[in-house]
């Protein structure tokens, strides 16, 4: 189904951005995306996700480095590259005083496409906006406005779609609709790059996940690889008496000892079928190691961020 011959559709090389006030929002970002892929960018507020997207789309100037879309430079060949891209911005920036129909038509026209009322009708219907087409945008709810922005972004049939936090402030229904649309687009070979703060969302939809912090792309990996890291859990055993060393009988388990020797930390993977936990408790009993208490902790997104950043540094 996918028109995916491992063709690189987007290539970002040594991209840096310094804002007019001197703030360095992107630092030497490198990124390659193949046609038909869905990539989710995660990262805390202010990481530079929107900045990166805005540069690729032509909304911001780059400071150094280069970006190519389907082999064309976004500065030299901007007419070509921009015609291939659709963007749904993070903020709800809409033409409040226009009707839904007019603003969508305007969007299409900007891309140099002849009016195609039938296509726009289909599009509006697929986003449940058809009955609102003659309403002024300002009379719509926030979620509906988001749909209008999506319709606009799709009005010229882009090859690459950027969705900047498409599900912020969006109800369950629209979220479901959105993922339906994303899946449909991908089956048509559209490449999708989205940002989100929800790891589950990335998990559900993306092929690869990129993590940004402080203007750097810390890593970009296949979802499956990353999920294994995310799936790790810790079991913490509070000991009654300190243990100088980990006894030989426990060495086969993936264990760590705290500095004060009062804790044993057992790492395991929730994604894998795991008999290790009970075996570990059995071994503790056998060796008569006494404990006061135990607790489990799932690595949070936050921790993963920290961990990944430290690994890379």
């Amino acid at each position: 189904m996918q028109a995916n011959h491992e063709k690189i559709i987007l290539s970002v090389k040594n991209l840096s951005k310094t804002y007019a006030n001197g703030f360095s929002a992107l630092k030497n970002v490198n990124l390659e995306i193949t046609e038909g892929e869905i990539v989710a960018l995660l990262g805390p507020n202010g990481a530079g996700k929107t900045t990166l997207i805005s540069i690729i789309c032509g909304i911001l100037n780059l400071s150094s480095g280069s970006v190519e879309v389907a082999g064309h430079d976004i500065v030299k060949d901007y007419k070509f590259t921009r015609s291939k891209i659709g963007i749904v911005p993070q903020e709800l920036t809409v033409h409040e005083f226009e009707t839904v129909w007019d603003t969508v038509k305007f969007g299409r026209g900007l891309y140099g496409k002849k009016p195609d009322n039938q296509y726009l009708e289909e599009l509006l219907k697929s986003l449940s906006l058809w009955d609102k087409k003659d309403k002024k945008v300002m009379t719509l709810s926030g979620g509906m406005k988001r749909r209008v922005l999506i319709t606009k972004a799709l009005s010229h049939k882009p090859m690459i779609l950027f969705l900047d936090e498409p599900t912020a402030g969006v109800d369950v229904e629209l979220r479901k609709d959105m993922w339906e649309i994303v899946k449909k687009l991908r089956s048509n070979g559209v490449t999708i790059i989205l940002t989100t703060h929800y790891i589950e969302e990335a998990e559900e939809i993306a092929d690869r996940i990129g993590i940004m912090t402080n203007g750097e792309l810390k890593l970009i990996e296949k979802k499956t690889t990353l999920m294994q890291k995310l799936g790790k859990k810790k079991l913490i055993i509070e000991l009654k008496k300190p243990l100088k060393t980990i006894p030989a009988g426990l060495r086969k388990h993936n264990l760590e000892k705290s500095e004060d020797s009062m804790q044993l930390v057992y790492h395991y993977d929730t994604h894998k079928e795991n008999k290790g936990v009970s075996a570990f408790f059995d071994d503790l009993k056998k060796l008569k190691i006494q404990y006061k208490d135990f607790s489990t902790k799932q690595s949070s997104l936050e921790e993963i961020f920290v961990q990944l950043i430290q690994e890379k540094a």
Partner: protein
Amino acid sequence: MNFQAIRAIYIFEMARTARTLMQSIASPVISTSLYFVVFGSAIGSRIQEVNGVGYGSFIVPGLIMLSLLTESIGNASFGIYLPKYTGTIYEILAAPVSMLEIVIGFVGAAATKSLILGLLMLATASLFVPIHIAHPFLMVLFLLLTCISFSLFGFLIGIWADSFEKLQIMPMLVITPLVFLGGSFYSIDMLPEFWRTVSLLNPVLYLVSGFRYSFYEIADVSVLTSLLTVSVFLAGCAFVLAYIAKTGYKLKD
């Protein structure tokens, strides 16, 4: 050339005008009518003729220019400032359109609006005072050049402005005084020597003078000088715009 985009922007802007028809067309027409009632009929009948033209008729070209300038600047600056302010400009920046295409769309719409306004005012004026147009072709040329160059100037102001105050201040602080002192209501012959010389530094004077010449063949400065002045102004605006197109100044960080 992305003609569809130019068309889209033009239609969009004209639709915005149509929605605010009262402010954009009706109010200048009404205020002009008031000018004629007061200056043309009431006071004008007590003022002597200027260079053989009745005072009411004499002020028609200047009054039209006054409105054209303020309206062109106002419309065009607001037209581009609004999307900047609301953020919808992202859509235009992300679209495959060149600065030239953006300008043709926005400035074209603003200039069209001013042109309609100018013609409406002329029609309104003719209801109050006798009007004679000696050189219709030249008159239209002045009308067009003025609408285009000042819409372009307004567009630049709209790009430069980053607050509503700045948007208002240029037309209020600079343009209105220039127009009032630009011989809209008098011939500079009526001024003392010193102020006559100062007036010659005012570019609007050349505009009003040339435009008035196309009506009554009376002028403070030669028509060619007038045409040249407008052309230079137009070229200057175009030059600044080319710079903005290259650097993205104030449009893109």
